[in-house]
């Protein structure tokens, strides 16, 4: 099986840069959201449609990122 329709795009969620990777494997769509810096994985979702996979990965990323506390330096 080969991954198809591989895309990556950067967007901002809750004030943080996120890299969203999406690709199709067979009938399923895979979406993965990472924070751009340092590049840690936030959410990975498998769904029947591209839209659903993206939406759920981004929703989970937003939930996690919105909890991040910024401290005074």
């Amino acid at each position, binding site marked *: *099986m*080969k*991954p*198809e329709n*591989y895309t*990556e795009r950067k967007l901002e969620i809750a004030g*943080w840069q996120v890299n969203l*990777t999406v*690709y199709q*494997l067979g009938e399923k769509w*895979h979406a*993965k959201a*990472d*924070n751009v*810096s*340092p*590049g*840690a*994985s*936030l959410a*990975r979702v*498998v769904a029947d449609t591209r839209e659903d996979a993206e939406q759920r990965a981004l929703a989970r*990323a937003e939930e*996690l*990122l919105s*909890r*991040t*506390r*910024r*401290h005074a*330096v």
Partner: protein
Amino acid sequence: MATYAHPEVLVSTAWVADHGKDANVRVVEIDVDTKAYDEGHVPGAIAWAWNTQLCDTVVRDILPKDKFEALMTQSGIGADTTVVLYGDNNNWFAAWAFWQMKMYGHKDVRIMDGGRKKWLSEGRDLDTQPSTASPASTAYQASGPDYSIRAFLAQVHQAEKSNGAILIDVRSPQEFTGEILAPPGLPETCQRGGHIPGAHSVPWGKACNEDGTFKSLEDLQKLYGAEGVSESTPVIAYCRIGERSSHTWFVLKYLLGVRNVQNYDGSWTEWGNLVGAPVEKGVARQAVRA
């Protein structure tokens, strides 16, 4: 284009596609996200979990020698096996495994340049069923551990006090300054934010291209040379738990040829929780001077 100091430790995705199933080659995937392998992996690759198979699960430490030997034997790896490691996040934990394999003296370990990301983006074949390895016919015998490539707390304290080594903090700029206590979205794992006094901030990802491959020798020389790193400079790299810094350790030692470079795997989860340890906040001293 000039070649890396040790180009033999890198293989391309094309090489793995051609040789991944050769009799003397064992391909291993190690991901931050330990479920990624199950979605699909390089045909024939087995998986190691960094959080259960590549560390001591009781004491905070690397994998004990006897367990390392058992893992190699179970994975069908002998002393002469060519082991190719790859994973997500531009090979973070592949580099972590590479570092441990070198500590235990395995001769031929390589990293697939670009890791899982490049393999996927190139639309290469994936297996969705787990691959299994036949155990090696003879038990693996490790050497070492060679701690010359690992820094412990006392050495880092000494380096901080005496400026005996360049400390490279490879975390994100916000972790370095102390604005955040863990990567965005992850639980806070330290009592204090900031960095080891005098450390240089060079986030690990600066060593990579957009496609996940390592930057050219010239670019890497420019990047680390600006921080005073040369082949003869002692360097200690650290991050939060030691996996990102093993990536930078790999770059410095094997791509740039820095002779004395150590990975401080205690990293910020050790230093940032120590009572009385000196902590500096804000940008790096060198940046302030510049």
